[in-house]
């Protein structure tokens, strides 16, 4: 876990909190499941205005790392995190950090669309309601509409907001989950293989959506699909066997990787 010296250390490296600095900073992050080390000393800066993609073969630790960024690993029995992760210079593993608020600021979209078995409206309204973000009923309706519009779902569902969220198609469900995540106005959105359960057309819509959301939210996406990483991201990190092998501009990684392992993976020699 965190000690004060590490915080100071990290702050010394980036003393000024200005817009140019990364949204999230991970330094020497290791994750253990029981005795097993799933992630070894990963250091990454998550950019505020770019989409960052994590790629790598199955079991390489990219999803594990993603889940440390909003402390979803806390819910896994026996999971332990070492190192420091800062959000705007604030250590998210410090005891002063409220994990509930953290997860509102760092939202998450999961691999399998998981809308609540409630109405479409309730799905989106739930977050603002528990965080007290809406001042009135009409304000809440406004938030729901804005979120659904941003998620590109409004025109498809505006006439049936009271229908169950689980009755939507897979792609619509995933966009509903994105709408639900942005309804609480997060600063970062983590996406854990958001398109792996979707067909190509639904995938294209989600990718388009990621483009539109870029700039407003810092976005981190884990993907198996390298073409997708190339299409949607500006920064790419390649993980292998729990290590961060290479991290840099997406164009750089895909055209001119420094490491042979990265090159082998990208050219499809394994994975």
């Amino acid at each position, binding site marked *: 876990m965190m000690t004060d010296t590490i915080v100071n250390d990290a702050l010394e490296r980036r003393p000024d909190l200005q817009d140019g600095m990364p949204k999230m900073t991970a330094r020497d992050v290791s994750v253990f499941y029981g005795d097993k080390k799933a992630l070894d000393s990963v250091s990454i800066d998550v950019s505020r205005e770019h989409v960052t993609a994590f790629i790598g073969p199955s079991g390489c630790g990219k999803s594990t790392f993603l889940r440390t960024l909003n402390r979803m690993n806390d819910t896994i029995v026996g999971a332990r995190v070492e190192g420091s992760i800062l959000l705007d210079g604030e250590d998210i593993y410090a005891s002063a950090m409220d994990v509930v608020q953290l*997860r509102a600021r760092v*939202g*998450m*979209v999961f691999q399998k669309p998981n809308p*609540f078995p409630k109405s479409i409206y309730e799905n989106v309204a739930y*977050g603002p309601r*528990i965080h007290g973000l809406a001042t009135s009923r009409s304000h809440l309706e406004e938030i729901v509409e804005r979120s659904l519009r941003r998620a590109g779902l409004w025109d498809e569902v505006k006439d049936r907001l009271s229908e169950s969220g*689980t009755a939507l198609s897979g792609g619509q469900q995933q966009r509903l989950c994105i709408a639900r995540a942005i309804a609480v106005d997060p600063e970062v959105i983590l996406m854990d293989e958001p398109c792996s359960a979707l067909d190509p057309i639904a995938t294209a819509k989600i990718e388009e959506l990621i483009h539109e959301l870029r700039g407003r939210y810092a976005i981190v996406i884990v993907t198996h699909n390298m073409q997708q990483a190339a299409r949607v991201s500006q920064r790419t990190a390649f993980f292998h066997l729990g290590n961060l092998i290479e991290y840099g501009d997406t164009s750089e990684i895909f055209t001119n990787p420094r490491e042979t392992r990265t090159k082998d993976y990208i050219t499809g020699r394994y994975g």
Partner: protein
Amino acid sequence: MSDSLAAAPLAPAAPLTPTDWKADAMQRRIRRRYAAERRFRLIGLGAVILSAAFLAFLLVTMLGNGIRGFTQTEIRVEVDFPRSTLVLDPAAIEGFGAQAALAEADIEGIVLAAAEAQYGNLAPGLLSDGAWLRVRSRIAADPAMLNRTEVFWLPVADRIDVAAKGTGAAEAEAVYAQLRGAGAVRTGFNMNFLTGSDATDPTMVGIWGAFKGSLLTMLVTLALAFPVGVLAAVYLEEYAPRNRWTDFIEVSINNLAAVPSIIFGLLGLAVFLNTMNLPRSAPLVGGITLALMTMPVIVIAGRNAIKSVPPSIRDAALGIGASRIQVVFHHVLPLALPGILTGTIIGMARALGETAPLLMIGMRAFVATPPGGFTDPATVLPVQIFLWSDEVSRGFVEKTSAAIIVLLVFLLAMNGLAIYLRNKFERRW
């Protein structure tokens, strides 16, 4: 990885002969497979038919015996009040002192005299012991009848009632046939059975007292076992760390669910009656004792229901910043509720049919008035059935079956409610 796969040496290829799908051995295998499937289907069908037959047998026997318990034979008795020996002023029955005036008057005597006047030597043992009570309550309701001749339909004695239903002694049946020929008897629905309480005379007994006792006891059981059981299940599933202590608690709860019910009765007797001095025979104590028995069932069912809520729902709620308690109460519990309710109803149904522990805490007493509250002496349906089945008088046989029908209807209503609630709360995801 493909590199290592390609490098792996291939096994030497066996000489391949094409499979002959038409060969005799193949045909035999197909026939055996079909025979096995047919056999299994027949066995399954047999099991279903056998259990359906058991159920039908139970229902037919109970209904056959019990329906008669809901009817009652009444005899026509004409009482000429002005000419009777009754000394009772209609005015005395209005206002205060009415109870005392009625209690002092020898109503039983004039009813018996009237019966004797009408039926002569048949009269002794014709009327139910409690028949005159009906006359008394009619007088109390309408004192003016003391100035005229009034016709009453009064319950006949047990032996005539049984004879009317075709199962009595030869001598009683002869009497009944004679009365019927004279048009002096009728058989109708026995309202008293649904509104009365236990009595010594089978023609006067009612099930309401035991029914109300069961209802009150179940309320106490539900009020204690449901919240405690659900909260324990939630804590064990969602909050408790996995260690040796929680393992121990889990094993203990599973064992508690299997403890014979009479042990809980002894516990209730020792703790609630002897140590805490709670009232004997009361629904309160019965309810607490049954709650101890029902709680582990609810905990086990609740844990299974909570476990079956998909983790993706928890992730979704946690992912937008819901706290643990919000996740549990907004998402997990509503989804687990159908399963929890099903388990609760199963536990409650078991508690409703439970006799042994209640015998231990004195709920087997003769209680002639319905309980007014949770601390009044009461009995419950299964204990009432047990008590009546023990009676000597022939009339109690059908009352026992009738009480069983009431108990089964109660159970059916509870199960129906469970199915309704489950369908109401069931959601797909």
